[in-house]
């Protein structure tokens, strides 16, 4: 029985879903690892509690949730947690090489020692040792609930740790006299060093920044995510396609479509102009020649820092969970 649940709640769960649990136990082939029915039911109960956030998981949807679990992996994890030697032998044979290879891939070419350290530390925690080598009460396997494949979950943990370690090691040097003014002022500061200041740039680039803000705000979430993963995180189309479970060509066409759509939105916004708002004067629409010049200014080698301009002019907030 999960320690976090009361006896009565777990007993009620067992009674309510007895036939379902039995079929799941058989499907999981848990007896292969000598995992008892009660042990496996406890694991399923813990998984449901974690997913639904309640000690009494709702009856609606629980069957479909259980049916979608990776039951054999869950049974293996349960056996590993209880220290089953055959299960650990299987894990060492099958998962450990994958773990090491993933760690090598994550850390990169020159980090064999680091990769081994990353993989072995995870392996130790799975075994039930903490980072100092002492036996810990809870195993990392307690956090696996069968929603994904066991190997994918292990890779996810590795990736999380690696990214968090990188982010923690990056030094964020605070800038002196960090600008907090509007985007126009930030632009002007960036411009002021240039001896041959082009008045057109001063006039046009803030318009471009605003148009881009509008275009991004209007972009649907999946498309914004695709754009970020491709251009900001440097994922390849193949990786993105696998992540989205589509053909690589489909991902490629979608990306092209997004770019085309964004360009059209930006052009329309620049051509339309803007009405006066929030104390700012309105702006007339730009001509096609001006629009073209606008983009050229932003895309040439001159130091146009769009990031700082947009950071100064925060994009309208998006709420999570939409």
């Amino acid at each position, binding site marked *: 029985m999960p320690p976090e649940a009361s006896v009565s709640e777990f007993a009620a769960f067992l009674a309510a879903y007895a036939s379902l649990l039995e079929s799941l136990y058989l499907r999981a082939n848990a007896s292969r690892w000598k995992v008892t029915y009660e042990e496996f039911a406890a694991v399923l109960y813990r998984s449901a509690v974690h997913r639904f956030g309640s000690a009494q998981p709702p009856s609606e949807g629980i069957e479909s949730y259980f049916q979608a679990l990776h039951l*054999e*992996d869950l049974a293996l994890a349960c056996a590993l947690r209880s220290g089953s030697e055959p299960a650990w032998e299987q894990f*060492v*044979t*099958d998962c450990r*090489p*994958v773990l090491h*290879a*993933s760690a090598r*891939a994550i850390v990169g070419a020159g980090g064999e020692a680091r990769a081994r350290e990353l993989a072995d530390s995870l392996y130790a925690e799975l*075994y039930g040792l903490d980072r100092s080598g002492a036996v810990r009460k809870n195993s990392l396997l307690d*956090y696996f609930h069968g*929603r*994904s*494949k*066991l*190997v994918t979950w292990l*890779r*996810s943990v590795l*990736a*999380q740790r690696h*990214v968090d370690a*990188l982010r923690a090691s990056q030094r964020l040097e605070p800038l002196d006299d960090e600008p907090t003014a509007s985007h126009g002022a930030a632009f002007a500061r960036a411009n002021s060093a240039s001896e041959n200041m082009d008045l057109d740039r001063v006039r046009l680039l803030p318009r471009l920044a605003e148009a881009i*803000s509008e275009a*991004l705000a209007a972009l649907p*979430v999946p498309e914004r*995510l695709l*754009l970020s*993963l*491709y*251009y*900001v*995180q440097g994922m*390849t189309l*193949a*990786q*993105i*396609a*696998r*992540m989205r*479970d589509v053909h*690589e*060509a489909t991902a*490629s066409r979608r990306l*092209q479509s997004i*770019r*085309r759509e*964004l360009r059209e939105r*930006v052009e*329309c916004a620049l051509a339309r102009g803007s009405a006066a708002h929030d104390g700012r004067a309105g702006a007339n629409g730009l001509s*096609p020649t001006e*629009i*073209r010049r606008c*983009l050229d200014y932003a*895309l040439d080698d001159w130091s146009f820092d*769009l*990031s700082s301009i947009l950071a100064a002019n925060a994009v309208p907030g*998006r709420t*999570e969970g*939409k």
Partner: protein
Amino acid sequence: MSFNTPDDPRSRDARLARLLAEALKSQSGRREISACPDAEVLATYADHGLAEQETARWESHFADCDRCQQIIAVLAASGEELTEAEVEKLGSLAAASVARGPVARNAATPWMMIWRRPALWRWLVPAAGLASAALWFALRQAPPPQALSSQKTAATTGAPQSETAPGSAAASAKSDETQIAQANLPAPPAAPRPGTLLRDQEAAPANSSTAARKERTDKQETFSNAVQEPRVSEADNALEAREDTAKDSRVPSAQPVDKKSQAVDALGAAPPVAAAAAPSTPPPAREGERAVRQELDRATGAPVPAQLKALTQTPSPALVFASPNRRALWRLGSGGRIEHSIDQGQTWRPQTSGVTADLLAGAAPSEKIAWVVGRPGAILRTEDGEHWERVAPPPTAQAVAPQSPAPDWINVEARDALHATIISRDLRRFVTEDGGRSWLQEK
């Protein structure tokens, strides 16, 4: 509205998108880390296991969270580069076999190349003549199978029973040594357990037959599907070529994803159908046939089909380790199997390990020196790259009860022939500085 510019609109689209990427970068990272999902949600997302509503919810978070985007990118790269790392270990030939898709199709490539390139025909006549001569020579040298078996018996019993002519017996005996030696090899290991399917895929991304390949593909992890699937079509390649090729060329173009083939996990105890379908050892190569194949392949410039075939008929051993300069590779497996390659994985020669235990890990500080460990308690070392000697395990490595079996050694790190560290399954570490004569447990 559109531009009347000489620039390609697609080029302007790409440039504008990069500008937008900068904007996105500046906006990311504003989410609190406490709002980020746990590893299982990320893994389930990668496995396409989240419900539609949940996917939308988390993608909304991912779109603005630099941390989660980084994790997703690393997670994607870890799976893909897993295959790349193993391919690199097997050498460029393995990379070529992976990139070119099924072996069955590759096997036809040299002939198709000949037909499609008339310029190659001028090489066909001399190549055929040379091949015929080599074949004639080989057939002339090789005794009939009956004589071969007689010689094998003579080799084992010491009684000469050869039926061949006395004059040719001595001359053919040497050329048959290889065949006799190969015929006297230990029986191939049993079909691998279900769990070893994943190991097989690591060592031999391309399978021997299309049918076995499809079965294995259905059981692969998501990340390894990218290697097994056929390449993107030419039209799709052209489409992709318009993209930022500098970025995409970092990784070989992966193959289209088969939505239906991603559901099964190798850990799912699927019956070893694929493994049983694949022969566990490649057939002994006859010298004449090999020469013919090599001549034809040199003429066509195509990769050697025999080597591809041998590579893709990789038996159950799949743990590969190499010397630092990658000139020497070893391949380990169950039943004490060790194979050695000095040509970056193009050919493998079996070595005698002297044990029948499963070998689990190896390390090679140089081309000649290597350590191998396995179960139960197996520790091996070679100082010439060829001959393996068994090393006594640490006496204190036994479990508390003296009657307990020796522990399994699951990892080894080696600096040279004298210095090595072995790790048991319960993560105890033992160090030697004298080639295994004595061990010290690390605290």
